[in-house]
């Protein structure tokens, strides 16, 4: 066991527990974006940073396992430096994001949007500069990928590879040009994608989304020549079932 303090209160946690887990176990919420339970702990987004006594810089809580060397340390989850850093991280993400929230499928349940609100991002153009312009991949029957809304958290990549064992999407190129796409820029429809939708469920933003055929249904319903029979598919329910597991 390791004895630590979180925001001045003493806790005892098992060695190897990450700071994030230690906080969660004790009802203290730290925001996360790239972290996805069991499958994606890569310390990429830095939204989960905390201040730790003795550390020179802020620490990413999701990838820091507590050890006996941390005995007695105090971890601040919401200090001014932490809050400022999280806010800046969001502003930097927005600097390369199309921010098309009003017309976005995820508006209202987007993790990026929710965090901007929570952390008081009041200037979404704080870091103005170059933005990527990616083609939207609409090749698949069931979904589209709009990398202009992607924050490169790689949760979809982990879901595709680790939940499903498919691995047709990944982070390609480097630095500013990094893009979640398929090998050789292939259309998703031309890969071994099995249309499971796990990547959509894993995505915190509106970058991945089901295609919406509501208009086609309205059209069919309005067609007097058509006899309408409705059958719900079970796939939607199975996918929503997973949602509750990861959140």
């Amino acid at each position, binding site marked *: 066991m390791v004895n630590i303090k979180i925001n001045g209160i003493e806790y005892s946690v098992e060695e190897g527990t990450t700071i994030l887990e230690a906080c969660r176990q004790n009802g203290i919420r730290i925001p996360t974006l790239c972290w996805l339970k069991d499958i994606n702990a890569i310390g990429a987004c830095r939204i989960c940073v905390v201040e730790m006594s003795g550390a020179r810089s802020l620490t990413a809580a999701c990838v820091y396992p507590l050890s006996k060397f941390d005995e007695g340390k105090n971890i601040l989850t919401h200090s001014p430096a932490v809050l400022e850093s999280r806010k800046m991280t969001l502003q930097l993400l927005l600097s390369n994001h199309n921010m098309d929230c009003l017309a976005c499928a995820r508006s209202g349940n987007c993790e990026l949007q929710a965090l901007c609100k929570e952390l008081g991002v009041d200037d979404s153009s704080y870091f103005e500069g170059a933005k990527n312009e990616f*083609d939207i*991949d609409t*090749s698949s029957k069931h979904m589209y990928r709009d990398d202009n809304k992607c924050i490169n958290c790689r949760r979809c990549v982990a879901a595709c*590879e680790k939940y499903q064992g*498919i*691995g*047709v*999407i*990944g*982070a*390609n*190129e*480097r630095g500013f040009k990094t893009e979640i*796409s*398929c*090998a*050789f*820029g*292939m*259309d*998703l429809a031309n890969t071994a994608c099995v249309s499971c939708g796990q990547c959509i469920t894993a995505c915190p933003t509106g970058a991945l989304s089901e295609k919406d055929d509501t208009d086609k249904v309205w059209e069919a319903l309005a067609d007097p020549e058509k006899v309408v029979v409705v059958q719900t598919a079970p796939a939607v329910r199975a996918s929503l079932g997973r949602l509750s597991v990861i959140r």
Partner: protein
Amino acid sequence: MAFKKSVVAFSQTPEQEQKLMEVINKEKGHKGALMPILQQAQEIYGYLPIEVQTIIAEEMGISLEKVYGVVTFYAQFSLNPKGKYKISVCLGTACYVKGSGDVYNKLQEVLNIKGGELTPDGKFSLEACRCIGACGLAPVMTINDDVYGRLTVDEVGDILAKYND
């Protein structure tokens, strides 16, 4: 989406194929085997087209996307063979502030290819490089062994015209 397959058709000799298999069999199973395999494969073929990456992925039991992600991450790997004339534009700090970025863009426009690509006739390949130690001549580019310094965007057409064989 633009499918980034190399513009020249892939062909390999039986020796190249055999060498690649030897490399894979020697390295696979080791931790971190992908990098040395890719480096040696590029030595064998000069570049890493989809055909070679597919063999590596299949032999190693990993996805093609994983291989491609690594290949596009590192500047040392190329998806295209080099052209008869290999154009390198320096995007090092000195050249960049002197406008080599514009020269690079102009070349992409005139040749109608992006950096890292090859013209369909196999004549010109274009790439960016880092400081080549000729900062006094910035902005600098090289075409094979010829060095061009104090470049302006307007000169690009005339320079390319010299390579007319």
